[in-house]
């Protein structure tokens, strides 16, 4: 499949220099100032951002609302033009339309034509990649199955729920089998199952060797999937690094065990005290709410009609 697409889009195969560096996205001193009609400065949305995203990683842009995440993504896509600095995608300027051959983009909300159905939507976007009809047909069916919308593929998008719209949005972002996927708030508006599936999908994309850039303000989602993150606040880069090293609290140990007697617990407390440590907590661990909800739903799907209860 991927080969067919590569044939259909010559630049996919030809443009890639053998010695291409691992850097997929590079921003240099990237700044964006929004101005009003008279050219007066309104907001400095992004201030001198320097970033590098490497091939095959999941990169998260984090920050509260209005921190410049979406502005960065839009600058990378050429939807906005930088006030100063540069945004390079695959080594080309972000305003170059040619780069779009290798990019997939899922906007914040899926801005799709509501009067088309799922098949027509994907077929339309396939045509925008100049894909021949037979390639398009196969790819559309494949993607609809992938996002699990086979049962609703002939329904107009205006009848779709938020979650379904999100899925078809993801499918359109993947129509060209892109090397770089840009996801703007991928889990927004999704229920816990949808969120989990979206996160699984993102991880699968990475496993296929694609580069993923996502922005989100849902920390849990970012923590679950991202390899590296950048934290933005008021248009400035505050933190940049690997997620595991960023969230590891190096001077803290958490002890969790099961099947211990009261005596054994006392013994462990004594050991900690002996090494000069201070016991913060030692209690029965709880699962996360997300895990619990998922478990209940899975149980209920496995045994329909029966109310699932927690053991003991």
């Amino acid at each position, binding site marked *: 499949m991927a080969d067919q697409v590569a044939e259909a889009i010559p630049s996919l195969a030809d443009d890639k220099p053998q010695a291409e560096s691992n850097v997929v996205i590079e921003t240099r001193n990237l700044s964006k100032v929004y101005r009003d009609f008279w050219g007066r400065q309104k907001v400095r949305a992004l201030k001198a951002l320097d970033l590098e995203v490497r091939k095959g990683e999941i990169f998260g842009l984090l920050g509260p609302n209005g921190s410049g995440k979406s502005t960065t993504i839009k600058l990378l*896509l050429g*939807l906005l033009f930088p006030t100063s600095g540069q945004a390079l995608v695959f080594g080309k300027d972000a*305003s170059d*339309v040619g780069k779009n*051959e290798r990019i997939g*983009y899922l906007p914040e909300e899926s*801005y*799709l034509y509501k009067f088309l159905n799922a098949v027509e939507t994907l077929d339309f976007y396939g045509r*925008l990649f100049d894909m021949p009809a037979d390639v398009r047909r196969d790819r559309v069916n494949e993607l609809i199955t992938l996002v699990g919308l086979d049962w609703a593929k002939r329904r107009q998008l205006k009848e779709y729920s938020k979650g379904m719209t999100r899925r078809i949005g993801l499918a359109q972002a993947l129509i060209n089998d892109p090397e770089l996927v840009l996801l703007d708030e991928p889990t927004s508006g999704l229920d816990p199952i949808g969120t989990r599936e979206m996160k699984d999908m993102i991880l699968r994309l990475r496993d296929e060797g694609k580069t993923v850039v996502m922005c989100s303000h849902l920390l849990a989602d970012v923590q679950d999937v991202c390899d590296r993150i950048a934290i933005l606040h008021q248009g400035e880069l505050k933190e940049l690094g690997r997620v595991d090293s960023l969230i590891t609290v190096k001077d803290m140990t958490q002890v969790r065990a099961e099947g211990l007697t009261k005596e054994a617990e006392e013994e462990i407390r004594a050991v900690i005290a002996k090494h000069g440590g201070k016991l913060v907590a030692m209690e029965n661990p709880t699962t996360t709410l997300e895990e619990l909800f998922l478990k209940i739903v899975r149980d209920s799907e496995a045994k329909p009609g029966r109310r699932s209860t927690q053991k003991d």
Partner: protein
Amino acid sequence: MTFDQVIPDFGEYLFGGFVLSLIRVALLIAAGVFIGFLVASLRRGPVEGFYSVAKVIASSVNDLVNWSLRRTIAMASLAVQEAIRRLVLIVFVVFVVILLFAGWYLDTQSENPAKLYLSFVLTASNFLVVLLALFLSAFSLPADIKNRTIYTIVTKPVRAWEIVLGRILGFVTVGTMLLVPMGIVSYFFVQRGLSHDHAVEQVAAVAAGNVTQTGETTFDSHHRHTFKVYDDGTGETDVVKRHWHTVTKVGEGDSATYEFGPSIGLLQARVPVFGGLKFKDRAGADTSEGINVGSEWAYRTYIEGGSLAAAIWTFEGVTPERYPEGFDLEMNLRVFRTHKGDMEKGVLGSIVLRNPNASAKIRRSEAITFTAKEYVSDKQTIRNNIRVVDQEDGSIRDGQLFDLVDDEGRLEVWIQCGERSQYYGMAEKDVYILDRDAPFIANLAKGYAGIWLQMVMVTSFGVMFSTFLSGAVAMMATLSSFVVGYFSTFIFEVATGAKEGGGPLESLFRIVTQQNVQVDLEIGKTPTSIIQGVDLVAMMSMRVMTGMLPDYANFMGTTEYVANGYNIDGTLMSIQLLTAFCYVLVVSLVAYYLLKTREIAA
């Protein structure tokens, strides 16, 4: 109808007007590049500015190389689907409803009902389709930008060129899908509206040559005919309200009945063949134009009656192959009377056919007298057998029309006014030979093609404005461009000072203070020069505007040909086609750069 619309020769147009337009376009492009450079350098300094302009130009070459038909068609079919979703088919329903009720109001008592019906359907189609193009094109792109559906388009490898062209193609397709059924419905509406039957009111036997019966038809559709039947049982009615019927006699004696065929001549496409015009003055000397009889429209000049003054048309290509049985000469002469004369009767005149070859044996025909019908066309049938004047003895004898045609197929038609102190007025296109009629349906289709071209241009202007204006504003801008284009002849006259009363501000001042347009402003030197200074700027910009916008009135003018029963000239069609094509090309180029250089997400 007068053929005052000057149709240049296609070659003349191509190497005159067209090349001039190309130069204008080139200047426009240069100005566009320069403005782009100015804006960019204001933002980032001259060096960066130059660099970014160069980058845009380079990438537009790249865009052209990567142009994809499939993407363009995808964009176009999306536009079609969107238009259909927006219930444009309602427009067709509106059209049909208008036609349904129009029958009540169209005055069938008119002398020329075909003109009334045709101009009605053509005008209705024209305005409906242009309005549709206006709404579709102006609101589509702004809606996409507002809904941000455009985000998923421009992040694909879609070139701005493809978005613009796709939109134009899509909306033109929708417009065509509406215009074609409109044309078909119109044809049947006109056909049905004009068709009528007659029966015999009275008939009497006569014996005059081969005519055996004459009679009168019943009064139907506000008119009646007289008719005659020949000894072979066929016959014909006279021409009333520009049509006639065939008559067939069925049976013999008292039990004979008469059947009338469908009307002939109502829906026609006459093909005028024009000649060159020169004059003789009252003393018989050559002159290039006649007399000006006053502050009348300078289109026509006049010849004096009862003198040697003559108007001479020279027609070319008059060959027996082309006109085997002779031809009809149609005349639209004006009359200027210096005394009342007999108002009930027209002014007498004569037609003489002459051989341009001075050494020919037969040089002129006998004078054919006629009465000028003011304000309506007058048809003179010139048959092959004609009375000619023998050059040697001056005797009048039977001759052939083509004896009067020289070796190059040229024939002169001399028209003289016969009454003293009365004048005939004429312009070159007032007298012409009628060639064989062109098929009416094809002519109607050509009329609709003119409407189609207007729709295509309005669509591209709409798309262009919608690339940088919001929906309602884009629609107003497109509408203004249409109105200014429609009145461009008038606006050009105002802008060049050809219209009396000065520029817009001066005119306004004159209206408010009720001052005569033909005298100088009575407000002193300084205020006058201020008003005229402001007007000078306004008139300059008006002049530029009329030079840039299509003359829609010219395009609508072609539908008048259809309504008046004249064939639309092929040259006119080609000129309009080329003009429209150039407008679409330039306007979509402008739209492309506007869309390419705008921040979609801003």
